């Protein structure tokens, strides 16, 4: 009865009193909470926090780095650890320059473990960290001892708390003084489900903005010779952080005239004005101080998927920094190339010094790859750079387009500049398809496409050159190229029909008759042989023979390569007409012609024709 009575008494308590009690409880809780929020942190011993911080830093760095001793640590209201002016120093050598400094570190503590008296850091946020990989501090990578972590069975260790870098910079020794990576916004975290380490974020290298998405089985193993399986997706684009001038200069000349292919290539390295280029690789990654190695890998570049490996070794600087500099170097090269039309191309420097001390070994091969508008059935590329020599081998087969194989060897010598040797051959290449690809270079056709020559081409070339600029390279070009086209046609003019009008007595080069206006059409030929010899800055066109039904053309002359001036002469000969008997050695019309002007605007001039089968229509009387 007693309890029931009490309950009854309680139930008869006035409602106001109940509200008052609840209010008091809430006020008490709020006071405790507020007190805890503001005062509690002050009760947490800074030493313990520092130990925790060092433990986290140790986990990520393999136990090699920790906070400097005189670091100021405060626990702010809300159990947020604030570290002002932190410096990460080497455990082995505390007097050495710190590997990293930052404006501050903010590290929220986990509340629940705190209630049980444990201090655990939820994650580390580093504001404006500056990572210094210069000089001795660059031994960071070597110091890391992956075994320290790998020794712990993976299942037992708790994943380290996530680390977020906000607007950081990395300094390292570059080719010209100190290089810098800025705008570093990265998040390092462990993916609990896959037990992989993930790095996501962005950074700015030179004029480019890189977005990184890296997933590794074992982050610590990345910095070992053994490496770790993983995948990386790099997206590169122009930097948009208010430094528009940079974009304008680095993208100069990339207007719509750029070829589809160049645009595709440049898109891959983030040259495009509008979108990010994407590169992805999946394989075994290994980064050590002087080397970057991606082996057993699949690379995806602009829609092409290729298998192969990439290994870069640098003896003086961090290999990775050398690789990160490549997009900028390529963009400079592309801008130079697109300025060719403006006449500056002659002075474009050709430089290989940036390759000094870098050993590069890239090999890729793939099948059925879309490239531009065509599909490469098979392609293989190998690039080997070492000891001041770069060797590039290319081979490709495309259904309907033909086979191409080429080798380019570049050597660097201070006195001669770049020494280039290129050789290769093409087999069964369809000229009309090839010219259509080249025609895609330049502005899109405003009023229609030009007509292209046709035929099947076989040829070979062997060229050598050396120089410090593109102009010097062209000037020193030596070697030869031979080509044979079969069953083709020249577009624009019907030569046979034009010669036929001369045979019928047409006159020209007089005031009344005007010039020889060629008949529109195509000139079908059975075979075209041409040999071009390059020597001292000129292309000597020798032995051009075109033979077709009832006609023949011979040509020889010079083309000055740098200025493009042409001085070519030849004869077009009409041997027979349909329905006429061919007499060997007999010519109906012999029309000499010259080609002058420049290769950009050639001038074809008709000479004095000899019409043998008729009375010479050009006799004065």
């Amino acid at each position, binding site marked *: 009865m007693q309890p029931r009575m009490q309950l009854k008494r309680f139930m008869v308590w006035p409602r106001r009193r109940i509200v008052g009690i609840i209010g008091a409880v809430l006020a008490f809780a709020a006071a405790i909470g507020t007190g805890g929020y503001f005062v509690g942190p002050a009760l947490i011993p800074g030493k313990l926090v520092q130990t925790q911080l060092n433990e986290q830093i140790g986990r990520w760095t393999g136990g090699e780095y920790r906070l400097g001793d005189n670091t100021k640590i405060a626990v702010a209201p809300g159990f947020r650890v604030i570290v002002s002016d932190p410096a990460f120093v080497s455990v082995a050598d505390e007097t050495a320059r710190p590997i990293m400094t930052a404006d501050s570190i903010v590290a929220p503590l986990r509340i629940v473990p705190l209630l049980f008296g444990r201090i655990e850091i939820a994650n580390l946020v580093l504001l404006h960290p500056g990572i210094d990989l210069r000089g001795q501090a660059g031994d960071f990578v070597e110091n890391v001892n992956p075994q320290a972590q790998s020794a712990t069975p993976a299942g037992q260790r708790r994943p380290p708390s996530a680390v977020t870098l906000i607007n950081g910079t990395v300094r390292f020794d570059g080719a010209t003084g100190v290089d810098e990576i800025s705008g570093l916004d990265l998040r390092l975290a462990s993916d609990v489900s896959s037990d992989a380490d993930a790095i996501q974020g962005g950074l700015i290298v030179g004029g480019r903005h890189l977005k990184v998405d890296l997933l590794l089985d074992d982050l610590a193993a990345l910095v070992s010779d053994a490496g770790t399986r993983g995948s990386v997706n790099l997206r590169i684009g122009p930097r948009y952080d208010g430094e528009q001038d940079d974009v304008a200069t680095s993208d100069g000349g990339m207007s719509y005239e750029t070829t589809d292919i160049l645009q595709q290539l440049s898109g891959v390295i983030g040259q495009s004005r509008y979108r990010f280029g994407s590169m992805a690789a999946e394989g075994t990654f290994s980064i050590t101080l002087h080397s970057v190695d991606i082996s057993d890998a699949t690379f995806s570049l602009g829609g092409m998927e290729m298998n192969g490996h990439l290994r870069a070794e640098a003896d003086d600087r961090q290999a990775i920094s050398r690789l990160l500099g490549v997009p900028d170097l390529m963009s400079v090269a592309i801008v130079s190339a697109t300025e060719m039309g403006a006449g500056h191309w002659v002075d474009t420097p050709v430089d290989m010094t940036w390759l000094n001390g870098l050993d590069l070994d890239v090999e890729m091969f793939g099948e059925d790859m879309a490239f531009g508008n065509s599909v490469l059935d098979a392609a293989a590329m190998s690039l080997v750079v070492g000891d001041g020599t770069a060797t590039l081998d290319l081979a490709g087969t495309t259904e309907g387009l033909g086979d191409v194989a080429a080798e380019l060897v570049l050597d660097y010598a201070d006195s001669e500049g770049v020494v280039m040797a290129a050789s290769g051959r093409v087999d069964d290449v369809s000229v009309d398809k090839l010219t259509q690809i080249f025609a895609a270079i330049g502005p899109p056709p405003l009023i229609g496409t030009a007509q292209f020559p046709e035929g099947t081409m076989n040829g070979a070339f062997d060229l050598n050159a050396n120089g410090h600029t593109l102009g010097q390279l062209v000037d020193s070009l030596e070697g030869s190229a031979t080509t044979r086209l079969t069953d083709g046609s020249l577009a624009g003019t019907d030569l046979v029909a034009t010669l036929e009008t001369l045979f019928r007595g047409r006159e020209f080069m007089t005031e009344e008759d005007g010039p020889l206006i060629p008949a529109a059409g195509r000139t079908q030929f059975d075979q075209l042989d041409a040999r071009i010899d390059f020597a001292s800055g000129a292309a000597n066109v020798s032995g051009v023979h075109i033979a077709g039904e009832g006609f023949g053309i011979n040509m020889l002359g010079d083309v000055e390569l740098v200025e493009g001036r042409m001085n070519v002469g030849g004869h077009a000969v009409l041997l027979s007409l349909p329905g006429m008997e061919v007499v060997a050695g007999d010519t109906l019309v012999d029309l000499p012609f010259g080609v002058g002007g420049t290769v950009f605007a050639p001038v074809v001039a008709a000479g004095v024709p000899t019409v043998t089968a008729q009375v010479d229509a050009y*006799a004065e009387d």
Partner: protein
Amino acid sequence: MFMRGRRGAGTNPTQMNVASRTRAPWHSPLIAACVLCFWIIYYGYCIFPGLGGMLNAGDSAKFQTLGHTSILVHGPGYPLILMLGSAVRTLSLPWEPWWVMTFLMASVPGAVANTMTFLIVGRLTRSVVFGLAAAMLLGSAGLMAVQSTEAEVYPLALAFILSTGFLLLRFIETKQQGYFITACGVYALSFGNHLMMIMMVPVFLWVTAAHFRILLRPKTIVTVLLLIMAGASQYLYLAWVTHMPTTAYSEYLPLPPTTSDLLSYIAGTYFSDLYGSGLASTQTTEVLLNTLSFAHPRLSAPIIIAGILAFASGWWRRDAGWTGPALILGIGLAFMPFILWYGAYDIRAFHLPVLGPLLIGSIGAVGWFLARWPKARLSVGMILLAFGVLRAGEMAGYLSAREPVFDGLVETLEVIVPQSPVDNPVVSMTYDMRMATLYHELLNEVPQPASYRVTWRTADEIAKRDPVGGLVVPTDGGQFLQWIEYRHPNLFCRTRPVEQQTGTRWPAYGFLCEERAFPLAPD
């Protein structure tokens, strides 16, 4: 008889008169004026920067010369353009003569052609959206946009063709003779621009045959004959120009000419070698198909095919108003035989009179076919209009990216002419370069004394000279000297190098001919 449709979307003439009184938007003069202004500003803004152009630099530079000096151009003489040049010289506007000439002879007519397109297609489809879409698509079609911003005669030809087409369309609709007579007047005037207009005669014959009861009346016949004579009389102006002492230059016609010279000049016998040669191969057909499909890549060819199919199906069903699309498409087809027959290597320039009517006739036929589904017509019209607007923006970029072709020409001549082996040299040039030089020569901007000649007009000057010497620019592989020695077997010619600035577009060589000690026996 044509308007007796059993079903379909057309209106009968009475309804149409009511419509015109209430000013339906598809023939609103205000919208038409806006279309005209838009294209005048657009083409004026995008005019090719300087002498010449990408299509036919020599001819364009020659027409531009008319802006400051009276000259004779190539046959058939283009008296209307000569009159226009005369007006430009009289006005002496404060802008560069080349700009004014290009603007007045190509840009303004191009804008007029686009306005006529709006009126024609608006009328065929009863849809202002379709009218605007057709005007945008014609105006931004590659060949049209290029020719309307360079000194070419074909935008004017197209303006005449479409104006005539519009008037004939009105005549077919209303049966009012006034429209037919005005059409004849515009047509007669158009012969002062280009003689290829003769290809439209079958269209007139077809319209006359279909309406012979209305048209074959003495009064009408006499009026039309008078108009034809008035049109032909433009060639009297041409004859007058040939006898004017102020005419500073004639390329193909000795001045003053005999009557037979003048007639063969007007008949264009100079180019007679090319007549019919287009039929010798499939070249002209291939190039025409290429032009039609590249007017708007991926759009123009399908829409022309769709338009012809829409017309065929509507015609099969005897939809009312089938004569409208038939007239416009027929005009395009009427010019086609000329294009296929004339074997000029630069035949593409002639394609506008085929491209224009075929393109807008097809768009009109599609809209006409869709008329019974007003929502579908509106949607398709909006899609075409949006495409046209985007394409006009894209084309403006392409047009503005064209670069001058004769920059530095005067400077080049100032470098090379003083290096001539003789005083008062003969300077043999290609046609394009000669025409651009002519523009500057008649403004006294090139080094003198020197005789600038196109290669095949040097014979007289060579015969006059002693010693014979001069310059060849651009180089020609030495063929010019062969011609001199051929025509003058007593002469022996050598080349002389000429110093030029690096990167020149016009490499040159000098030449000097001497008497042979032992003249060759003539062949």
